[in-house]
């Protein structure tokens, strides 16, 4: 389970995340939506323990990701924005490194690496240098590293960015299958992804949560009952007319 409890983060005096709160239970896939610079990645970094909040707390399966960082990080898999990886390594080497860092060894390591590479559908690309791979394969290599230790919590920052339609479909299917036993957050600019795989969606802009509801309820906020129109209504120039909405109700 993931709990973001009034998270605040400021950079150089500017508030990037302002009292963001939400909860993700096991079995849920939360779509984290918002325009560029809304505070999505900063919030995810705080949950993943890469950034410390200036106020509030993030709990990963009950562990505070700032105060019990390592315990929290043992519970989660994190795909950072841009899916960074070491270009000289192969996806197999990268996945094995991430597993070793988490204490995997010998047969446990071999089995977990094989499983992750298979689930991420890397195929022969698993043996090529990451630097020589296409954007889609690089992202799948980073995704394989994030899921390799089979964590109960997954935080995926734009997991399908740069993938072709078939690859997107594969990753969405994978996320849906994994969601049965995990709490998952995905950030995305692809609004059709929310309908496809998310059980709930949070819309964030200017560092504040504007809406937190099921995709169907969220769509009702739009002029034509679609997520896209709801997103525009909430975050576009006229967004202020919708107001701040939490749990499907206007604040």
């Amino acid at each position, binding site marked *: 389970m993931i709990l973001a409890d009034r998270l605040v*983060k400021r950079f150089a005096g500017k508030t990037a995340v302002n009292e963001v709160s939400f909860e993700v239970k096991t079995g849920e896939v939360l779509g984290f939506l918002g325009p560029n610079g809304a505070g999505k990645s900063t919030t995810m*970094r705080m949950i*993943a*323990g*890469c*950034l*410390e*909040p*200036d106020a509030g707390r993030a709990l990963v399966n009950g562990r505070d990701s*700032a*105060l019990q*960082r*390592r*315990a929290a*990080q*043992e519970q*989660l898999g*994190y795909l*950072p*924005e*841009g899916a*960074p*990886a*070491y*270009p*000289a*390594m192969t996806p197999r*080497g990268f996945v094995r*490194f*991430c597993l*070793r*860092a*988490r*204490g995997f*060894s010998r047969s446990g390591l071999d089995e977990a690496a094989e499983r992750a590479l298979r689930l991420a559908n890397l195929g022969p690309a698993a043996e090529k240098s990451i630097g020589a791979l296409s954007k889609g394969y690089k992202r799948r290599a*980073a995704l394989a*590293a994030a899921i390799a230790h089979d964590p109960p919590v997954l935080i995926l920052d734009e997991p399908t960015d740069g993938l072709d339609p078939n690859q997107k479909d594969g990753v969405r299917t994978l996320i849906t299958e994994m969601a049965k036993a995990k709490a998952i957050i995905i950030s995305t600019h692809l609004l059709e992804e929310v309908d496809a795989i998310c059980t709930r969606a949070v819309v964030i802009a200017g560092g504040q949560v504007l809406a937190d509801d099921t995709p169907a309820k969220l769509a009702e906020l739009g002029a034509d009952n679609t997520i896209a129109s709801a997103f525009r209504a909430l975050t576009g120039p006229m967004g202020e007319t919708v107001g701040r909405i939490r749990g499907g109700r206007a604040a």
Partner: protein
Amino acid sequence: MNGLKAVFRRELAAYFETPLAWVFLTVFALAAPSFAWRVGDLFDTGRADLAPLFDFMPWLLLVLMPALAMRAWAEERDRGTLETLLSAPIPLWASALGKFLAAWAVAGLAIALTFPMWIAMNYLGEPDNAATATAYFGALLLAGGYLALGQALSAATSNQVIAFVLGAAACFLITVAGLPFVLDALSARLPGAAAEALAELSALARFESLRRGVVSLSDVVYFLSLIGLGLGLAMTLIDSRRGGGR
């Protein structure tokens, strides 16, 4: 320890997956004997020892160690992989130490590439092998100190070139701090005690006694402290990017 071992293995492999380690080892293997032979007149001293090699070792190391250390954190920051590392349940000290030990292993290998000269000295005469071994030990400690400083400055920037320039400058300063011309220049401007304290900080002065075959606990502690200081500074700089040391 899992995190430390994983980072050490990855870092060591990373040096050899790219041309960096090969270029570094080649340059060192060619430069160290060249300085000793061509500039230090190794075969004209009439003595079977490696003094000319160790005369130039600090100057060679102060350029090459920052080159080896510059990628440690700057590359992670530039590529965004720092986030991958920070999101793994690895203590920061294990990441810093793993990176340092990998670079130190490459430095040790480079220094070991001069062993054929030691063997040649034994073939040509009867060198003081204990003193030579102590000098090698000193060179390894000096390399470690320079690497730790380089790693600290690598954590200060995402640009490897800047990290190298800052690292080389820091190594140069800590090397020349105790040289007579620096002390003479500073003694006119600084109180006597400050100038003496500065002389005590000189890596060159500490290396000199080890180079002569004298192992002093204070010299060993000095280099280990320098390594600890560099790694501590690197950890502080990286942790500050996380937003504080809570």
